[in-house]
């Protein structure tokens, strides 16, 4: 390959083009100005989205990555620019979201001298990134970028940081690009072990009450169809983790709902009754398992995962099938006997009925009193397009949205699972709308969470991605208020919110909006939300003391489930 002599900053952009990057989210500053300057010459091939805060940039990149499956790319300056992306990195690390964050750094001779806007970015980001590396020469840039994308994408995806000094950006180098195909010390896809496959199949074939736990690994491994074939062949009912919900979108009969603290009754009860528990691309998070001492003790457990560090991290297993689930699921399916577990599958019905009567029906079809969160979400879901992407913030709005919004297509959920980052919703929804402009992006957020990154309305104003923003305003930090009501004798310490006029703020950014207080106006307002071209902000005043039920209190088990009725 012929090399060309160019500046480090240009080498960086050419390398990004090689990796098929067409969008970057970012914010300029002194240590990254050279890269932004080079970007100016590439503005026809790389779209730059200037968010209003670096946290907005990184969450937008996460939303972009979630819907496209491609790494989200972020450019920030050194010092505060870089520290502002740490929350997003931690979020992406826990939720296995591929990101490549390029941070400017002070010139290499100044490193270690407490220079203006110098921070130890590699040191700070290491614990919350899959790989973090400082680049001090232009010559290293193509190699580092190639490696960064390989690491971010391959195996279990995750965020990667390149900390590039200002002199490396400025210096000339002989540029050639070679994609990274292999790293000796990193084995992204463990080789499938046939013995494990056989053992797993034997356990499942012998099961009377098999139950599957579906996690995001299925989506990351693009194994949605393989999963359906697997479940169908042996007639295995399943529950999904929060991030696993879109893996089986669109009302698949064996999918029995969400697992965990605010999950559905059936899946949680059946976890404690099944004889073989099959975890697929999920990591036994404590919000799913509750008390580990009593978790699924009656069952043999099979764990399908790509990441060896997840095996027996939280739960002892009988068989571990280490590989990309796209490979391991079909291998096991091939050995499964066609089975029917009719009585077992039907036994979910009783719990579904109970939950419907005691929780769902009153939540989504209330007849009197204030508007409820579930009611709004259900109505939006019914009117949303089949390709809709659900984005959420964190708190009650998130749990309610994930319970009541019907996901109908692949990669249709953008939410902060592992880190539970308030302020994630708005920028992540923007990133999703930019990554999938043909899809309808519906964001549910709280009156608290939206104010953590509300400045990103400015990003909407400028780039006009279509985000249907629905603020469920309960005038409280609702989820914390819920815990205070249940466990802290209703002492509402620092959870009552004084809020601004949200549609008026939207109006200041040129975004149409509306506020609904009464049930009668709701349907029409939602129609307007969807009929309006582009973004729209709908604020709904909902029940102030609304509660998310059912609930399994933290650290307990399904025997402690609260219906709240």
């Amino acid at each position, binding site marked *: 390959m012929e090399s060309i002599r160019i500046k480090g900053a240009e080498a960086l952009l050419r390398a990004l083009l090689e990796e098929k990057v067409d969008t970057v989210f970012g914010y300029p500053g002194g240590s990254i100005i050279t890269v932004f300057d080079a970007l100016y010459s590439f503005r026809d091939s790389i779209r730059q989205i200037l968010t209003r805060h670096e946290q907005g940039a990184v969450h937008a990149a996460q939303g972009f990555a979630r819907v496209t499956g491609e790494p989200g790319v972020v450019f920030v300056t050194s010092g505060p620019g870089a520290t502002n992306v740490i929350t997003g990195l931690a979020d992406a690390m826990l939720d296995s979201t591929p990101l490549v964050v390029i941070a400017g750094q002070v010139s290499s001779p100044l490193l270690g001298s407490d220079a203006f806007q110098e921070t130890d970015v590699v040191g700070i980001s290491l614990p919350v990134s899959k790989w*973090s590396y400082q680049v001090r020469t232009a010559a290293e840039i193509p190699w580092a970028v190639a490696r960064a994308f390989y690491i971010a994408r391959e195996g279990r995806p995750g965020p990667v940081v390149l900390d590039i000094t200002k002199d490396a950006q400025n210096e000339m180098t002989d540029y050639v690009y070679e994609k990274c195909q*292999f790293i000796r010390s990193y*084995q992204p896809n463990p080789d499938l072990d046939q013995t494990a496959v056989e053992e797993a199949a034997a356990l499942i074939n012998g099961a009377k009450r098999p139950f599957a736990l579906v996690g995001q690994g299925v989506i990351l491994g693009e194994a949605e169809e393989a999963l359906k074939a697997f479940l169908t062949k042996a007639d295995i009912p399943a529950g999904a983790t929060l991030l696993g919900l879109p893996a089986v979108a669109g009302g698949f009969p064996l999918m029995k709902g969400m697992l965990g603290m605010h999950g559905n009754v059936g899946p949680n009860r059946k976890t404690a009754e099944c004889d073989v528990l099959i975890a697929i691309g999920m990591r036994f998070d404590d919000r799913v398992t509750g008390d580990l001492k009593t978790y699924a003790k009656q069952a043999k457990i099979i764990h399908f995962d790509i990441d*060896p560090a997840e*095996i027996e991290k939280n739960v002892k297993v009988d068989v571990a099938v280490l590989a990309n689930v796209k490979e391991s699921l079909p291998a096991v399916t091939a050995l499964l006997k066609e089975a029917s577990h009719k009585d077992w599958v039907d036994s979910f019905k009783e719990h579904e009925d109970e939950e419907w009567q005691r929780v769902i029906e009153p939540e989504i079809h209330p007849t009197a009193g204030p508007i409820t969160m579930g009611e709004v979400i259900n109505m939006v879901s019914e009117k949303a397009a089949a390709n809709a992407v659900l984005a959420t913030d964190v708190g009650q709005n998130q749990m309610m949205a994930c319970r009541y919004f019907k996901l109908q297509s692949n990669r249709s959920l953008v939410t902060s699972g592992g880190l539970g980052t308030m302020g994630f919703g708005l920028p992540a929804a923007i990133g999703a709308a930019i990554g999938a402009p043909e899809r309808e992006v519906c964001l549910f957020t709280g009156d608290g969470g939206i104010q953590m990154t509300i400045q990103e309305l400015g990003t909407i104003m400028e780039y006009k991605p279509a985000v249907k923003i629905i603020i469920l305003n309960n005038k409280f930090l609702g989820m914390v208020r819920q815990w205070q009501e249940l466990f802290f004798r209703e002492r509402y310490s620092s959870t009552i919110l004084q809020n601004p006029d949200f549609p008026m703020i939207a109006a200041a950014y040129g975004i149409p909006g509306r506020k609904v207080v009464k049930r009668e106006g709701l349907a029409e307002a939602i129609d307007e939300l969807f009929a309006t071209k582009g973004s729209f902000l709908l604020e709904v005043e909902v029940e102030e003391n609304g509660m998310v039920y059912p609930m399994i209190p933290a650290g307990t088990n399904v025997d402690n489930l609260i219906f709240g009725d």
Partner: protein
Amino acid sequence: MEKIVYTITVYTENMVGLLNQIAIIFTRRHLNIESLTVSKSSLPGIHKFTITVESTEDLIIKVVRQIEKRIDVLKAFHYTDDEIIFDEVALYKIPTDSLLDNPEIETLMRTYNARIVEVNRNFAAIEMSGSADVIQSLFDELNKFKVLQFVRSGRVAITRSTQERLSNFLAEMEEKRIKAMKACEK
């Protein structure tokens, strides 16, 4: 589960910042590193960390997997004391006068298989290698005659196994590399 001493060996690429990457994994679990040695390994370009820590087997397995998960870590292993041959080195500095005035010191040195590495008018430097206990016990003995300085290294270890796990791993990786390169030529 019982807490015992484990020796963890970690083989890494020769890159800046690996010590930090490994150390934070112990910090997160509030595990105190008892000893740490870092050096070049017998294989060119590969560094070796030998870490001892007191813990339960359950936790050690998790820690080792999390260490191995770091991109630039080639492989990590954990061993109990009976699976390895290990040693530490210690240096003791005593006043030359005490050496000359106390013939017991010479006897001690013989019993402990220690040797003098330097003597001058002021002090004598004694070196010994052995297990942590023996090193401590020689210190306690010598200190009766006032030890001026005492240092001990971290642990170094080799396995008793006849399988060279790292070389096997590297050979396997080389095969994979060739496969990956071939796959992309197609």
